[in-house]
């Protein structure tokens, strides 16, 4: 009866945060991706688009040329960071969906750092520091509410996202608005902007921020005592407590680290891949990057290295999707988010690989039965 002793939270997360390495988890991710793409194709087909042409345009757009690949990398960079933000907390057994709000706050901080007049490398560092701190501070709110009042982080982080949304609207309108174009903030000066790696694409040196942070998170989580405590807190909170791990401190740390990660994501967009180096008033570039990060994290099995690969996959879908929009078969790029959602939904099923044949059998059996029923009624009608 061990199931009864588990807390509500560990029940809700059933193993989603456990260490998963080896072939089966990777296979599950691939299978989930295929199911997601299939459902995406189904919706496209139902709505009068040609899914095969669309996917072809998408794949060619993303992986067919080095420019496409570079754009995929540019989109992947912030996704890696928001995915890490989600994963760090999930590893600690918490479901932190606050990256959206932390991203906005960090974005504002990045814009503010643009006020300084500094030489390039130093300016980058200051802006990144600003963004990291803003993300961390904004994630402390839900952390404190959880640790002192027991408010579940799903509720508190979403509320913080909305508060951040309106706070940012106010702050941009009141203090940071660009005098020359009213739909964006003042621009980040070029001394704090990452330069492009490849001309004609969005790929900037910001991608190394993402890769470096992923490696750091990997090192911290798997090769330091603190990381061990974080993972132990996620795997079995009560055992970790008996083992002398100070749970509250660990959880707080996980929250802060995930805020830092979300903050970095804002810099890779605003100082990197974004077409304009200022924040849109309606948050255009930063919108939904936090949520998309969750899909990336799930497919990457909440492992930093896995996340690098899955971010590249989703970055490719989005980069190819942009080209697909312009093709004669103009499927909107928002389709990618639908595919992401289906993938996450599918990833909720544990042992997908084991169950999948049974699901297929069941469905085909059902269709068979349906077909027999239809043919029988058809025959009856004809006689």
């Amino acid at each position, binding site marked *: 009866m061990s199931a009864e002793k588990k807390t509500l939270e560990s029940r809700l997360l*059933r193993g989603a945060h456990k260490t998963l390495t080896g072939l089966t988890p990777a296979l599950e991710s691939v299978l989930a991706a295929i199911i997601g793409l299939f459902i995406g194709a189904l*919706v496209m087909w139902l709505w009068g688009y040609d899914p095969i042409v669309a996917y072809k345009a998408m794949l060619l757009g993303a992986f067919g040329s080095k420019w496409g690949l570079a754009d995929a990398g540019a989109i992947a960079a912030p996704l890696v960071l928001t995915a890490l933000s989600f994963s760090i907390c999930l590893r600690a057994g918490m479901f932190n969906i606050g990256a959206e709000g932390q991203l906005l706050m960090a974005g504002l901080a990045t814009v503010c750092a643009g006020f300084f007049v500094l030489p390039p490398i130093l300016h980058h560092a200051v802006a990144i520091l600003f963004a990291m701190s803003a993300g961390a501070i904004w994630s402390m709110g839900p952390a404190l509410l959880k640790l002192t*009042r027991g408010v579940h982080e799903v509720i508190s982080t979403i*509320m913080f996202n909305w508060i951040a949304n309106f706070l940012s609207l106010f702050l941009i309108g009141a203090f940071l608005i660009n005098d020359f174009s009213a739909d964006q903030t003042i621009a980040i000066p070029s001394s704090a902007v990452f330069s492009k790696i490849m001309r004609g694409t969005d790929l900037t040196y910001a991608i190394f921020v993402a890769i470096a942070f992923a490696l750091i998170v990997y090192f911290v989580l798997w090769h330091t005592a603190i990381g061990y405590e974080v993972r132990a807190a996620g795997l079995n909170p009560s055992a970790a407590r008996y083992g002398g791990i100070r749970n509250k401190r660990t959880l707080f740390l996980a929250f802060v680290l995930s805020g830092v990660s979300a903050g970095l994501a804002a810099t890779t967009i605003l100082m990197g891949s974004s077409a304009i180096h200022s924040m849109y008033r309606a948050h255009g570039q930063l919108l939904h990057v936090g949520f*998309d990060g969750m899909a990336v994290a799930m497919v990457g099995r909440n492992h930093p290295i896995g996340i690098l690969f899955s971010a590249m996959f989703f970055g490719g879908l989005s980069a190819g999707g942009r080209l697909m929009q312009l093709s004669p078969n103009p499927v909107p790029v928002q389709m990618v988010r639908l595919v992401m*959602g289906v*993938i*996450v939904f599918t990833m909720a*099923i544990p042992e997908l690989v084991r169950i999948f044949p049974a699901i297929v059998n069941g469905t085909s059996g059902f269709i068979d039965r349906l077909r027999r029923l239809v043919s029988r009624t058809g025959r009856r009608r004809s006689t």
Partner: protein
Amino acid sequence: MILALIGFTLSGMVPITLTAVGEIIGETAGLFNIGLEGILLLSAFAGALGATAYGPLMGILIGMGVGALISLLFAIVCTYWKGTQMVAGIGINLIALGFVEFGLIRFSSSAGSFPIPDSSQLFRWITPLGLMSPIVLIALILPFFAYWFLKRTRAGLILKAAGEKPEAADVAGINVNLVRLTAAVVGGALAGLGGAYMSVAWFGFVSKGMSGGRGFIALAAVVFSGLNPILALLGGLLFGFFRSLGLWIDTLIPGFPIPAEFLQMLPYVVTLLVVSGAIGRVRFPKALGAPYKRE
């Protein structure tokens, strides 16, 4: 003026209350769905399309059907296939966001919003409180009915058994998974009604941001109520009030010193405050979130 505020509150309370009551039914049976936000959005979209094509009543029904269907899918994944409820719920939210954005472009050629013609919107009564949809009345009565159903009927007891002690329910000859599936369908239909109400009977349009965190506020109302539908109604009214207050001040008192953004923030801040005050006295079903496995 005060009457208008009451009217705003009542219309604003509906989606939160309906969704919260639906979630209470689901959670009583052991399913914790954080995809409510997505269900609201999807059913608002489906309801709008249905209403434009077949009239308002069909729109509402289609919205309810879509809500029930998604909830059923969630329940199948989380009972028979032993899925992780948090992850499945978040998946629903993402699907809804992508699907509705995609659909808005497909059906209204702009990612902004899809207006519903006046003739396809559900009728509203003209009352001293302003225009009122009949669904407001449903949302006011339903929590009491749900309370009676959950606490006083045999079916309510069966739901509770499936959520509290599925082993015992199983031994008593109750099909735990089937009970959970039924609860999810009913709960999803209620959330779907809330969503369809938003588009077909309240706003008169669909946009991708229209659910506005209401699904999560409903979740907060459920936590605050401790699975008591009547308290959830109270929560719904409270959040509806604070959401309306900003709108009311903004439209009726020009030159109010507090910026509009802070007034819009109010319902979310209040949600946080209420929930952080409510924790501790709330007790959830023992098997909430755990798929039932025979041993």
